[in-house]
């Protein structure tokens, strides 16, 4: 079965500016892919090309095995899109906006169910122009969920949301992915959101795909980095720093953060014990997405 999303050597230029360069990527059905990258990396442009709002300069895109430029009408009913800073008809109510968009989708949709899903039932009759930014963002998610799409393209969906709302949205998206096997492509600046939600992370920089790994893999334990808890950590840190097989030993908050150059953890433990230090604990460090991200970007 082909992947839900297939991007092959896609380039997009706006005049002299290369927004996306030779991007190739596949997203499987039911997968949650996080798009990360600094500003101007090409995340929004990639999502626009997937949703048919922007035409690629070169390369091919397939959603559900179909070209969105040619068979857009086959794809659109199965897709929900939330672009950055969603816009609505401010003079109309939330319910009215959604019902008009639902009509365009050609679906018989119970708007209230969607509103309840995003927690907006109580403001359904208010004009969108009077809502806060966070509420508008929820309306944006609601319109993307109209018609129970199989694919969600979300550009910074938690932008403007408070902590609680953010968690609710992430929880909802996870549930959609797990229970309804909705494929989600999700761009964000918030590392912890991507960490918690995404199955895989694609990092873009300067329009290029610089890394693409499963979240579990890139956040595994780093065997060359441990936190050591000892008595008299100051002396232990100095001793360790002098060892050739230790890259660095830094005292931080009563613990020694040790990065091994070519040594092993048993070797470390044996050295400390042999040196007369009482070792209370050796805790392996888990890589964070932020660390990985910064490393990939050579920052």
């Amino acid at each position, binding site marked *: 079965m082909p992947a839900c999303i297939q991007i092959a050597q896609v380039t997009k230029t*706006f005049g002299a500016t290369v927004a996306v360069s030779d991007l190739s990527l596949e997203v499987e059905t039911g997968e949650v892919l996080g798009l990360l990258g600094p500003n101007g990396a090409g995340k*929004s*442009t990639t999502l*626009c090309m997937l*949703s*048919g*709002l*922007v*035409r690629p300069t070169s390369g091919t895109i397939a959603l559900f095995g179909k070209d969105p430029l040619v068979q*857009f*009408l086959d794809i*659109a*009913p199965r*897709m929900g*899109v939330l*672009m950055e*800073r*969603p*816009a*609505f*008809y*401010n*003079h*109309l109510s939330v319910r*009215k906006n959604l019902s*008009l*968009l639902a*009509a*365009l*989708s*050609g679906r018989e949709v119970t708007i209230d169910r969607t509103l309840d899903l995003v927690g907006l039932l109580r403001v359904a009759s208010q004009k969108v122009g009077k809502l806060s930014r966070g509420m508008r963002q929820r309306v944006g998610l609601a*319109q993307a969920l109209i018609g129970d799409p199989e694919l969600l393209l979300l550009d910074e969906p938690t932008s403007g949301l408070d902590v609680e709302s953010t968690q609710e949205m992430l929880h909802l998206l996870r549930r959609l992915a797990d229970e309804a096997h909705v494929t989600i492509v999700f761009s964000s600046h918030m590392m912890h959101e991507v960490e918690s939600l995404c199955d895989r992370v694609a990092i873009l920089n300067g329009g290029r795909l610089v890394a693409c790994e499963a979240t579990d893999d890139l956040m595994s334990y780093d065997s060359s980095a441990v936190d050591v808890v000892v008595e008299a950590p100051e002396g232990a840190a100095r001793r360790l720093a002098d060892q050739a097989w230790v890259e660095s030993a830094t005292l931080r908050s009563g613990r020694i953060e040790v990065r091994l150059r070519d040594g092993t953890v048993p070797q470390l433990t044996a050295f400390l014990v042999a040196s007369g230090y009482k070792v209370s604990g050796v805790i392996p460090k888990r890589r964070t997405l932020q660390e990985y991200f910064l490393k990939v970007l050579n920052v």
Partner: protein
Amino acid sequence: MIGRIWTAYTVELRKALRSASTYVGPVLVMLAVAGALVVHPVDRDGASDYGFVAYATPLALNLLGIFMTLVFCSGLVASELSHGTIRMVLVRPLLRREFLAAKLLLGMTYALGLVVLVAASAWGTAHALGDTAGVGYGGEILYTTSQMRWAYGAGMLLSMAPFAAAVSYAVFISTLTRSTGPAAALSLGLWLLVEGIKHPLGIEAYVFSTYLETPWRVFSGRVDLIDTAWFPEAKYCLGVSLAMALTFAFLSVYVLNRRNLNE
């Protein structure tokens, strides 16, 4: 396709009916008809008052109505581009050309609404305050009430051709700009420029606005007791207007299809 266009059109219509700015044009044209009453009074003096109808209709439609139509239609796409709502719409199962077709239909509905309002206001005023019997001369009825009504009705129908061209032109300008103000300014400014140079350049026969008043020639001629023929002017009106309407429609589709909607 027809179904999607119809659905999109009804969505556009529902949006427009809920917007206060939609009603500015209709109110203004009705005020123009009322204003014509000040300059061209109507009373029951035994003479038919088709002169008032012939006076008020072109005044309201071809001076004011066309401006309001251009302003209204200039904002149809430009406002969606500036607010970003076009992105919400075009990720639905709706092709860009179908979206434009719905906008054009809305523009035509607006123009038709203005024409009907002006007709109702002018005829209603003439009928209520004056006389709308036949047009006579020297005791003889030259044109009956029915003939006058038919001439006016045919004029209303024919007037949709140049208005279609105007709608199409304004929507095309709307696709070129990013917000309503510049779109309206550009469409009005360009139109006025063409109006000013079309006669010196000798291109008036190919400009749709030349034929805005053609639909009312026969009715106005009968008011003046001049037997005016529909043809060949009606043929030129239809031909040039529809050609321009189609041309601008295709240009609009071309522009919007190539437009990047990433922001």
